[in-house]
């Protein structure tokens, strides 16, 4: 132990005298460990660490899937209650639904995000309030008093953490509620943007047997000990099959069966984390590649150092140091540097992690908080120790190769460094080039993909469009529909249109890139069983197409006079026209947005115009859904008795040459004049909405490009180091070649050819690697082939330029070696 301490003291003295090596190791390691600490912390926090609920492995999300629609469709009330009653695999279950709400308290009216839940959700999750209580079993009953539980965040923000908030009255969407509890700080369910929880009223509608397909909320169940998600899913499927078989309208059963419904149960984590898990894994893959590159780079550096210490190490062996002793010394040296690099990496990782969390890792909200420090320290420590082991073993391998007798014999016969050593080091450089190539290739493909997404023809003019949301209380209440609602919306529209700078304005139930859009089935009339595509219904006004700049391709758009016409009109886009009628020549045709088997009388809409397609879903999504536009004023004035759709939240879109900041105060005043006290929220230009939608891809691309940049620099440094060392070892060889008549160009070419050889191997293997790894990232690419020639060419140019630039200096030095000086080298 004393020996090690003494050795380390000497080691540090030598490092202080020549700090270049130590600085290079620490800096490189800081980058590798820092990036991996951040991403591994996220990966562990979101995908591996237990969820912050007791026995979290028992929690599952139960949901519908259907052949006709993609993904998780959520749960319907009918099936939820039947599953609760008829299955035995779960001990408890709850549900939730996210809502936008206007909250009125002593601080005025604010917009909040609330989860409407069953009282059983809290007991299912097994959480307790920080203050007060959660909801009792009767909280969901019709006529129960309004109760609300606040999040810690909202309690802090709006009520200054005042404990006397319990029992305080507030208003949510014009209804009275009493605050009954405050949840602890770490309870952010289902995501970090949730401000409060309020009970869902389970009225008669929620128990109607024909609502099997009224999906839309999320069901969370707690499995009994010993039960599995699969067993619950099987029981729930039997419940669903029974519901379909006993559907109250037998004529609709074949249609229901065609939908191909089934029930799934998956761990709750996958629902909470969602798409984030895929990005986490992809980013971790990229950071792991970076760490590998860092290791290869440093192994090369440690080998170079071992070679320069050849005589010292040989002497130590001659003096009796065994392999174990030498390994101990080398490990102590490596560990000392790796611990410093690890601590610096931990700090960098923490900064990176906080940045990632702060920016939402490219998403609007994160699912739940992760433990930022606890896991990070462990990860950094493990990485530092593994790094030290890798480096000391590499050094030991080369010491083992330093045979004294061989070293003595080498002098005459050999004029350059050992062929084996050089090959290993060149191999390490090639590996770095391969890794850099893969990272750069993937980064280039992601960037190319994002560029294409930014230039996707959206079908509307996104420039100079400002949008926001207004919550108009009572809009969804059937009793309130009709002229009373229009009496609020029409003045709002007029007031906004009169704001200076507004070129046109529209109010709509839905706009492109609305995260909360929900589709419905549309039916051509006369009914055709083969055609019932999903469409987005957009309730709007005559100003919509002008405001969004959507061209009318045939027929016409809405006019103010349409409100007086008894027949209901619709304008549809090309996609809806083709999916409904199989043609775009559809002006005059009729459609319905209600299932023909529904009990309600169907309202038929006559198509008066066809407009261009717009991207409403995710940009770049292969399957865009068609849109059916309905004139709000016409329907509200005359058709409310047949109208099933309502929106509490209305989007306002304003076309203006002014900036958001310049026009927003006037728009806010216009809203306040017509809807006093109602806040506007979600203010964004259309450019920002597009940008937000691309944020996850951009976040992934930015990280991968950052890592790729680091990888290219590290590979260049590695190449430079190896070539510099190689040239210094080959000075005598260059002298001989010069003596034999090689001119400077020939010597320069000799070194550059070697670099080119390494580069070619690195590029060939690396570009194959790009194609292979490109498959892993393919789900995040848009219109970019896995062997995207633009990306591959860019990587080829950048890496070639960087590698040749890195190799130029040693090559130039080799070409300037005076022959006599070189021949004197030993």
């Amino acid at each position, binding site marked *: 132990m004393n020996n090690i301490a003494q050795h380390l003291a000497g080691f540090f003295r030598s490092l202080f005298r020549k700090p270049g090596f130590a600085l290079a190791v620490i800096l490189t390691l800081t980058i590798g460990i820092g990036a991996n600490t951040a991403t591994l912390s996220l990966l562990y926090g979101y995908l591996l660490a237990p969820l912050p609920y007791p026995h979290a492995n028992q929690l599952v999300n139960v949901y519908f899937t259907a052949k006709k629609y993609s993904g998780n469709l959520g749960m319907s009330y009918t099936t939820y209650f039947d599953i609760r009653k008829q299955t035995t695999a779960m001990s408890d279950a709850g549900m939730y639904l996210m809502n936008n709400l206007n909250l009125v308290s002593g601080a005025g009216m604010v917009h909040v995000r609330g989860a409407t839940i069953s009282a059983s959700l809290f007991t299912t999750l097994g959480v307790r309030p920080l203050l007060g209580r959660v909801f009792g079993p009767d909280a969901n009953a019709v006529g129960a008093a309004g109760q609300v539980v606040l999040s810690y965040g909202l309690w802090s923000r709006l009520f200054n953490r005042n404990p006397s908030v319990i029992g305080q009255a507030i208003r949510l969407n014009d209804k009275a509620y009493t605050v009954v509890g405050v949840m602890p700080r770490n309870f952010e369910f289902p995501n970090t943007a949730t401000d409060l929880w309020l009970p869902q009223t389970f009225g008669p509608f929620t128990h109607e047997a024909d609502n099997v397909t009224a999906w839309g909320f999320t069901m969370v169940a707690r499995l009994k000990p010993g039960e599995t998600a699969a067993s619950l899913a099987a029981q729930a499927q039997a419940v669903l099959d029974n519901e379909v078989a006993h559907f109250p309208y037998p004529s609709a059963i074949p249609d229901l069966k065609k939908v191909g419904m089934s029930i799934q149960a998956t761990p709750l984590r996958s629902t909470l984390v969602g798409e984030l898990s895929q990005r986490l894994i992809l980013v971790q893959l990229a950071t792991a590649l970076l760490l590998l590159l860092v290791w290869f780079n440093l192994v090369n550096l440690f080998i170079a150092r071992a070679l320069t210490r050849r005589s010292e190490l040989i002497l130590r062996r001659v003096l009796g140091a065994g392999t174990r002793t030498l390994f101990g010394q080398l490990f102590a040296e490596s560990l000392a540097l790796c611990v410093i690099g690890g601590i610096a990496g931990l700090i960098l990782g923490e900064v990176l992690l906080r940045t990632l969390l702060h920016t939402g890792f490219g998403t609007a909200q994160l699912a739940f908080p992760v433990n930022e420090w606890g896991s990070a320290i462990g990860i950094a420590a493990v990485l530092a120790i593994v790094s030290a082991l890798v480096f000391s073993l590499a050094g030991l391998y080369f010491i083992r190769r330093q045979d004294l007798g061989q070293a003595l014999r080498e002098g*005459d016969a050999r004029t*350059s460094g050992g062929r084996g050593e050089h090959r290993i080091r060149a191999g390490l450089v090639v590996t770095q080039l391969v890794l850099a190539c893969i990272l750069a290739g993937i980064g280039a493909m992601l960037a190319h993909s994002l560029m294409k997404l930014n230039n996707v023809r959206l079908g509307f003019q996104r420039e100079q469009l400002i949008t926001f949301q207004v919550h108009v209380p009572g809009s969804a209440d059937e009793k309130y529909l009709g002229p009373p609602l229009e009496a609020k919306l029409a003045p709002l529209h007029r007031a906004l249109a009169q704001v200076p700078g507004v070129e046109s304005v529209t109010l709509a139930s839905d706009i492109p890139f609305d995260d909360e859009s929900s589709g419905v089935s549309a039916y051509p009339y006369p009914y055709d069983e083969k055609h019932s595509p999903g469409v987005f219904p957009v309730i709007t006004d005559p100003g919509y197409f002008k405001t969004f700049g959507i061209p009318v391709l045939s027929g016409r758009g809405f006019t103010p006079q349409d409100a007086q016409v008894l027949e209901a009109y619709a304008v549809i886009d090309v996609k809806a026209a083709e999916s409904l009628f199989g043609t775009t020549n559809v002006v005059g045709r009729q459609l319905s947005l209600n299932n023909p088997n529904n009990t309600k009388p169907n309202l038929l809409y006559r198509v008066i115009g066809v407009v261009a397609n717009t991207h409403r879903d995710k940009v770049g999504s292969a399957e865009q859904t068609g849109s059916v536009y309905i004139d709000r004023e016409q329907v509200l004035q005359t058709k409310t008795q047949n109208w099933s759709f309502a929106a509490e939240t209305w989007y306002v879109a304003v076309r203006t040459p002014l900036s958001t900041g310049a026009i927003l105060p006037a728009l806010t005043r216009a809203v306040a004049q017509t809807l006093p006290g109602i806040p506007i929220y979600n203010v964004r230009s259309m450019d920002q909405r597009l940008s937000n939608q691309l944020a996850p891809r951009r976040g992934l691309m930015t990280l991968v490009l950052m890592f790729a940049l680091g990888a290219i620099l590290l590979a260049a440094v590695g190449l430079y180091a190896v070539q510099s060392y190689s040239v210094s070892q080959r000075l005598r060889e260059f*002298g001989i070649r010069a003596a034999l008549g090689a*001119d400077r160009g020939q010597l320069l070419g000799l070194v550059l050819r070697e670099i080119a050889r390494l580069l070619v191997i690195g590029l060939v293997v690396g570009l194959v690697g790009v194609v292979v790894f490109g498959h892993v990232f393919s789900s995040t690419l848009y219109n970019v082939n896995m062997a995207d020639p633009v990306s591959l060419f860019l990587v080829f140019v950048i890496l070639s330029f960087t590698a040749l630039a890195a190799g130029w200096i040693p090559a130039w030095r080799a070409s300037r070696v005076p022959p006599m000086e070189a021949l004197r080298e030993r």
Partner: protein
Amino acid sequence: MNTDTVIRIEDLTKVYRTEEVETHALSGVSLSVTRGEYVAIMGPSGCGKTTLMSILGLLDTPSGGQYDLAGKPVANLDAGARARFRNLNIGFVFQSFNLIGDLNVYENVELPLVYRGGVSRSERQSKVDAALENVGMSHRMRHYPAQLSGGQQQRVAAARALVGDPAILLADEPTGNLDSANGETIMELLAALNAKGATIVMVTHDPRYAAHAKRIVRLFDGQIVSENKSPAGIELRAGKGAAR
């Protein structure tokens, strides 16, 4: 000047300057070597032998004086022209062989022809084969230097020096790293090459090996201090520096 004169140096000086010291490595050396001659340069360590050889081999430039090689003034050539002239006119045999470890025997010998350019592969092959045959190393042409003894390596070095048909072969202590048996073999090889017409200038500190040469030039403190004229009639004069 005799048209057979391969090397002619006149009043050659070489001064190494540092911030504090000025070292006169060569002081007014004059020397002529004619075609087919075998000259040994002798002298104690530090007398300027290696410096003279470096300048003769165009590996270094003189500080003053004149140097004509194969009838052309070469003292003030730039680096590129020196490399070209060296490749065409001079063959080297070094004390430490200076074979390139990563190249095999054939490739080492071929190297001067590769740098010369314009020599076809088949022509290179026939010249390399002949050179290796000349030194008795044809059977080892695929071996690497580390697989050869010192004497064999020096024979390969001699083949490399001769492969380009240089005007002169410069040997710098060619036996310095060899045992006496191998040293003697190399000296016999050089004598045989000379007998076939090669012009040789050899630096040595060993009188036994110097005796193989037809003329011995002795250097001391950067000046030629004596000479043994051979029957071949080599012109030898003391440098101007020596007269001062």
